[in-house]
């Protein structure tokens, strides 16, 4: 069975702190995709990143970075120097290969609050 676990239900940090959102997944597939989505207060989920299971290189995009470790089945997301605009619910997701969006499995989400 496929599963995505985001153990942190809520996180609250002060602005400019670094924060890491954890994501652990379970799958029997040898190839798969992993995703992170952001849901700001407006409600619209926004795609942040997709990672192919073949590619274990870490990714950095501005203040955002992602650490993919197959050995621990984790795909963690770090925000450096957090800002109030980063406040949102963040979802990690897993998709089996070649099945497209219809088989995406979402974690339960982590609500991140950045205090001024």
């Amino acid at each position, binding site marked *: 069975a496929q599963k995505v676990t985001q153990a942190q239900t809520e996180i609250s940090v002060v602005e400019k702190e670094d924060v890491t959102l954890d994501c652990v997944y379970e799958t029997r597939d040898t190839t798969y995709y992993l995703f992170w989505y952001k849901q700001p207060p407006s409600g619209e*989920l926004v*795609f942040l990143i997709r990672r192919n299971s073949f590619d274990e290189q870490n990714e950095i995009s501005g203040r955002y970075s992602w650490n993919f470790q197959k050995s621990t089945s984790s795909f963690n997301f770090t925000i450096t120097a957090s800002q109030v605009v980063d406040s949102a619910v963040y979802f990690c997701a897993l998709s089996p290969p070649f099945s*497209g*969006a219809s088989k*995406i499995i979402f974690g*339960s989400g982590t609500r991140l609050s950045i205090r001024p």
Partner: protein
Amino acid sequence: DVKVTQSSRYLVKRTGEKVFLECVQDMDHENMFWYRQDPGLGLRLIYFSYDVKMKEKGDIPEGYSVSREKKERFSLILESASTNQTSMYLCASSFGTPNTGELFFGEGSRLTVL
């Protein structure tokens, strides 16, 4: 800019009422989806469609139906609303080809059934 538009942000309905949730996308996407979002449960797929007049059940289709008469429009129907269908409903769309798995979401429709 890509856009998925859901017709109503907030609805309040009574038990037994028929409810229509409309979703329109302007990206010429083949695939469209309806999700339900509940606290602690993440997003759960209700139905999806990969073409006009085509539909497939997701993980929780019971109590729902869908309609896709035009490529850009995907409707979710609650034939007889019940209180346990109080939730946030999210519409999404994606390309059929290339099939990247990336979803584009609307802002959601928060439904309260009294």
